[in-house]
């Protein structure tokens, strides 16, 4: 197989980014082709690479990058089913996002740099996916971090965007520190940074500290993939443009963490403690985020919390030892979450607000954006996991994996012994996943109903609704004329994504379709989980609908013009208030870390200003005073100079005469 | 014995100093009168007014000694003496005849003469400044500038003769004189004599004390005896310059019967030169101040340098 093709996949977007940055100022007309074409070419190449590789194959190539004295760092390529599958997802989503962005950010003055950063982001994700070396992977990992910082802060004129970009950067970095150490320990234990070598070492049992390594790596995974307790940056990252959210949530940033764990699954299987931790993390994440999603009013925040929850699913699958189902879920989720975000962008574009309660007051929103209406419906059904959409199959695979793990016969698919996965982890994941399935269905239904089936009569005017207090700021408001329909570039990507949303899950039905690309083994849902999962989802839908009806009735009884019907409020009751603010995790962090840090900073500032600077100022003042004294002598009067000179000469003469 | 001899010579010089300038002054009166076709003073003393100068002296002595109110009295009073005394000292060393017929033989004769004559400038400056008069100050400054400018060509011309003679002693120079020195040193003689005229501020070089221009310059405020002293110093200057030119360039006592009549030759030549001085006064118009300075720096000094070169060449050639 030609090595140039897989190498070109990450290189093309990177080159496109460089070209876009270089020419963006002078030739803005070049920005669009430079943004779309390299990414699209990469996507095509990714397909070609996948086809060339075939199923069940893997490709390794490496060249030593630099001698380090310790384990070598090499520019290594590792292609197998996981990587080509995810690279397909990345290429698809990135291309669609770029195309979508040409319309979405049509009049943005910073579009060239934005597009270049998206390209770079994509290139970094490709690098992470294709890399066969942990250090090179880390490079892509960090490039993604900095790109996310810039992209989230795209609207840096607003306070929200600035703080959100900073927060995303700092929180992910916080996870990256243990991650870096984990890689070092792993490399040191395995004697190499090559992933194949590491995996070989793991299966041979040569790793000295598997628990330590796994826990350290989990820190980075939690940061990138937004798992509790480092998930807080992701909902805030909604301050960035919507296509960026789609990119981050679906294909690139958050997928990286899951992908890494899947990649290093044998290492994690060596430590049951780490799996339990991962399971607890996943459980807390998915339940908490689902509750939060039920309480959010901001459309994008709902989707963001939903992403967090779905990532919890994937983490749960990993904790159950089944990386196939995790990656299956990852790809499926990537497709429908990209669809949901792009749809949300269209809706927000049309509604001029992020707030779903404000949208509920718009009478003809449904008719204004029919594409979005239907696409959103498809995406939400997929999210709920109703058959036969993608979400159903992937969720079933996760539930199956958890069930197996709970019975002590985890589906490790050859990555490790089934006994490596503790039963506790399986139980935790299973219970949490079931609960989350219910909640997911509930908040999806709520979102759908509130956003598109609101009581139009309650809304006096669309413009006034946009200005409603409490509606989160939407920086995209002024970017297009609401009177005109959304451009085709914003509409047809939805349908492109809707197709795999509906059909991708079917690939897992036959063992020689998708599973053969992965580790092999079945991804078919079992009857028990199907009944449980679907039943729970239907229950959630019914509960939400009932609550919506109840809330609508209550609101109709009350005076018109008050808060619109929100089943979330009714369902959650007293918890609603906490859930709306993410259960106060931010506040907790603020109390635990931010404020002490700020206080320490203030202390340091005080020490620097008042104590250290006193010495500095004292030194300066001393020199000044000395200079003042010396300056007194410099009158410019030559005679006084001469007097001093002669007096000195006489004094010297006397001293010499007396001294000798 | 030695002291007595010195004293005697000094007294003799003093007598000469008091007599000769008067004679020159009287001559000037008469010569000018004749040249301008007028009578001149004719009554004082009888024959052609011979006592006119004496009468002038008496008149000056009788006049009130006025010192201007704003003047610096002491300097104002000393100035005439400072102007006069150098000429007296110079007269002391000018040899009149051979074999020690001289007031006082000084080893560095020319040098002494020029050095002492240089002091005379101080007198004019002091007078000009102390008078508290703008014209006086201007005149004094002009005098000083002129005297210092013309001292250089004078010195150079004298140096030429000293070079030719191989000595700076005045009697030595006269001793070494040969008749062909006159054409040889003619340029030097012209320079020396002209510069001497300028040193005396005699016409046509009398810009600093021109009465019609700056009302007698440094001497504006002087009256009576002090003014007479300035006049006397001018006439003494004529004697000195004429005498020095004689000694340096015209061979001094050389002439027929120089052993016995040497002093007569010296006197004759001196008087002839003094006559030329008077003659020039009547003949030439006054030079403007800038012309005067330019004449010194662009004519006399190059001429003197040329003479110096010529002397050097000839001197090397004949030795």
């Amino acid at each position: 197989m030609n090595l140039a093709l897989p190498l070109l996949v990450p290189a093309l977007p990177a080159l496109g980014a460089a070209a876009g940055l270089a020419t963006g100022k002078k030739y803005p007309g070049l920005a669009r082709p430079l943004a779309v074409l390299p990414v699209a070419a990469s996507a095509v190449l990714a397909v070609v690479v996948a086809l060339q590789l075939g199923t069940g194959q893997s490709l390794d190539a490496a060249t030593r990058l630099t001698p380090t004295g310790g384990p070598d760092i090499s520019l290594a390529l590792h292609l197998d089913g996981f990587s080509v599958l995810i690279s397909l997802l990345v290429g698809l989503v990135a291309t669609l996002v770029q195309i979508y962005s040409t319309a979405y950010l049509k009049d943005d003055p910073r579009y060239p740099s934005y597009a270049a950063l998206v390209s770079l982001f994509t290139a970094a994700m490709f690098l992470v996916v294709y890399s066969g070396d942990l250090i090179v992977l880390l490079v892509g990992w960090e490039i993604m971090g900095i790109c996310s910082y810039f992209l989230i802060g795209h609207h840096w004129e607003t306070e929200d965007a600035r703080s959100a970009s900073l927060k995303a950067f700092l929180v992910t970095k916080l996870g990256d520190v243990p991650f870096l150490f984990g890689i070092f320990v792993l490399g040191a234990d395995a004697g190499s940074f090559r992933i194949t070598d590491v995996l070989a070492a793991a299966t041979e049992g040569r790793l000295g500290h598997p628990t330590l390594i796994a826990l350290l790596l989990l820190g980075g995974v939690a940061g990138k993939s937004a798992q509790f307790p480092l998930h807080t940056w992701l909902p805030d990252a909604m301050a960035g443009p919507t296509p960026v959210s789609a990119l981050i949530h679906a294909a690139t940033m958050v997928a990286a963490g899951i992908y890494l764990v899947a990649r290093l699954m044998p290492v994690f299987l060596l430590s049951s403690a780490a799996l339990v931790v991962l399971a607890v993390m996943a459980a807390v994440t998915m339940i908490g985020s689902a509750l939060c999603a039920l309480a959010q009013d901001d459309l994008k925040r709902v989707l963001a919390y939903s992403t967090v929850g779905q990532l919890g699913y994937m983490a749960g699958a990993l904790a159950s030892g089944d990386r196939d189902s995790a990656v299956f879920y990852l790809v499926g989720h990537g497709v429908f979450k990209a669809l949901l975000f792009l749809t949300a962008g269209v809706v927000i574009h049309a509604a001029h607000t992020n707030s779903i309660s404000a949208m509920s007051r718009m009478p003809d929103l449904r008719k204004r954006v029919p594409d979005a209406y239907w696409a959103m419906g498809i995406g939400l059904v997929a999210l709920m996991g109703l058959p036969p959409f993608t979400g159903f199959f992937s969720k079933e695979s996760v539930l199956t994996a958890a069930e197996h793990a709970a019975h002590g016969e985890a589906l490790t698919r050859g990555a490790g012994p089934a006994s490596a996965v503790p039963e506790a982890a399986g139980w935790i994941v299973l219970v949490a996943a079931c609960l989350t399935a219910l909640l997911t269905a509930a908040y999806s239904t709520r979102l759908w109903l509130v956003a598109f089936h609101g009581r139009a009569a309650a809304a006096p005017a669309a413009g006034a609704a946009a200005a409603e207090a409490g509606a989160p700021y939407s920086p995209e408001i002024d970017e297009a004329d609401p009177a005109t329909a959304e451009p085709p570039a914003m509409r047809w990507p939805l349908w492109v994504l809707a197709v795999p949303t509906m059909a991708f899950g079917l690939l897992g039905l036959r063992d020689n379709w998708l599973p053969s690309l992965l580790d092999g083994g079945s991804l078919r849902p079992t009857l028990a989980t199907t009944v449980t999962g679907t039943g729970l989802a239907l229950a959630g839908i019914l509960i939400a609908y009932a609550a919506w009806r109840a809330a609508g009735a209550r609101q109709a009884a009350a005076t018109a013009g008050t808060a619109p019907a929100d089943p979330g409020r009714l369902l959650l009751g007293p918890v609603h208030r906490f859930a709306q603010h993410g259960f106060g995790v931010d506040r907790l962090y603020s109390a635990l870390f931010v404020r002490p840090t700020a206080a320490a900073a203030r202390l340091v500032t005080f020490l620097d200003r008042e104590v250290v600077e006193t010495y500095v100022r004292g030194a300066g003042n001393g020199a000044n005073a000395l200079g003042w004294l010396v300056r007194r002598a410099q009158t410019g009067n030559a005679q006084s100079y001469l007097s001093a000179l002669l007096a000195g000469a006489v004094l010297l003469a006397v001293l010499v005469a007396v001294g000798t | 014995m030695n002291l007595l001899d010195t004293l005697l010579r000094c007294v003799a010089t003093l007598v000469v100093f008091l007599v000769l300038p008067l004679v020159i002054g009287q001559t000037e009166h008469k010569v000018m009168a004749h040249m301008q076709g007028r009578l001149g003073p004719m009554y004082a003393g009888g024959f052609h007014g011979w006592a006119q100068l004496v009468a002038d002296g008496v008149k000056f002595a009788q006049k009130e000694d006025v010192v201007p109110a704003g003047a610096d009295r002491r300097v104002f009073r000393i100035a005439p003496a400072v102007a006069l005394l150098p000429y007296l000292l110079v007269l002391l060393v000018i040899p009149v005849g051979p074999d020690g017929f001289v007031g006082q033989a000084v080893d560095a004769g020319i040098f002494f003469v020029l050095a002492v004559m240089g002091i005379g400038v101080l007198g004019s400056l002091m007078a000009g400044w102390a008078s508290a008069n703008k014209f006086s100050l201007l005149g004094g400054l002009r005098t000083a500038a002129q005297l210092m400018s013309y001292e250089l060509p004078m010195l150079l011309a004298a140096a030429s003769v000293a070079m030719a003679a191989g000595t700076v002693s005045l009697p030595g120079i006269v001793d070494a004189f040969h008749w062909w020195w006159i054409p040889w040193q003619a340029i030097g003689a012209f320079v020396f004599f002209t510069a001497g005229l300028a040193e005396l501020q005699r016409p046509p070089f009398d810009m600093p004390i021109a009465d019609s221009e700056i009302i007698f310059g440094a001497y504006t405020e002087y009256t009576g005896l002090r003014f007479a002293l300035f006049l006397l110093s001018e006439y003494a200057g004529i004697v000195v310059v004429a005498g020095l030119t004689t000694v340096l360039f015209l061979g001094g006592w050389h002439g027929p019967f120089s052993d016995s009549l040497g002093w007569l030759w010296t006197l004759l030549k001196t008087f002839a030169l003094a006559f030329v001085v008077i003659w020039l006064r009547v003949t030439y118009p006054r030079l403007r101040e800038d012309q005067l300075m330019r004449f010194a720096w662009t004519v006399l000094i190059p001429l003197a340098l040329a003479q110096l070169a010529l002397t050097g060449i000839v001197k090397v050639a004949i030795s």
Partner: protein
Amino acid sequence: MSTLLAATGSLEPAARSFLSPTGAEVVFLLVGLAVLGAAVVSVTTKQLVHAALWLVVALGGLAVEFLLLTAEFIAWVQVLIYLGSVVVLVLFGLMLTRAPIGRSPDADSGNRWAALLVALAAAGTLVTLVADAFRTSWIDLTAGGGSTRATGEYLFRHWVLPFEALSVLLLAALVGAIVLSRSTSGRLPRPRAGKLRAGKPVGRPAAPAATVPSTAPTAPAQER
């Protein structure tokens, strides 16, 4: 007689003493006192031109001292250069800088007392040193040591090169003086009223003093 002198030759220094000065020494002392007095008056008098004239006295006295030290030629050079030229130039300078007749109150600057202190200290040191060092030294004067002939011989036999170098120096000084004193109205900045002061705009305050130049310099003369 001569044999007696030769016999006492070695004893001669002992015979000399301060108590039996020779005639030349007495004259030297008297003239020296006059010179010193004139010099002191010259540096202390408040009348500027008088100071120059007292300088003439001091320098003339020094010429006499040179004569007494048998440096005849140098004495005449002293008269020619110092009395005839330098002092005249100094008087020129004083008059061109408008020295007033009578006392100038600001002839001495503020650090007069420091100057006096330094001068006295230097005098004490030097005199102590010199007197201590040359207590027993006598000069044997011989006539003709500084005559014109002797001067010419040593000057043009041993000192020709420095002599020529000095001529170059004089030429340089001549050129320098001419360049400095040329009227350079076009190139020089216009005179300012006072010194440059920080914080004030330069240029505007200069105008009055430049247009009426005669008022400022005459002010000291009127003060008297």
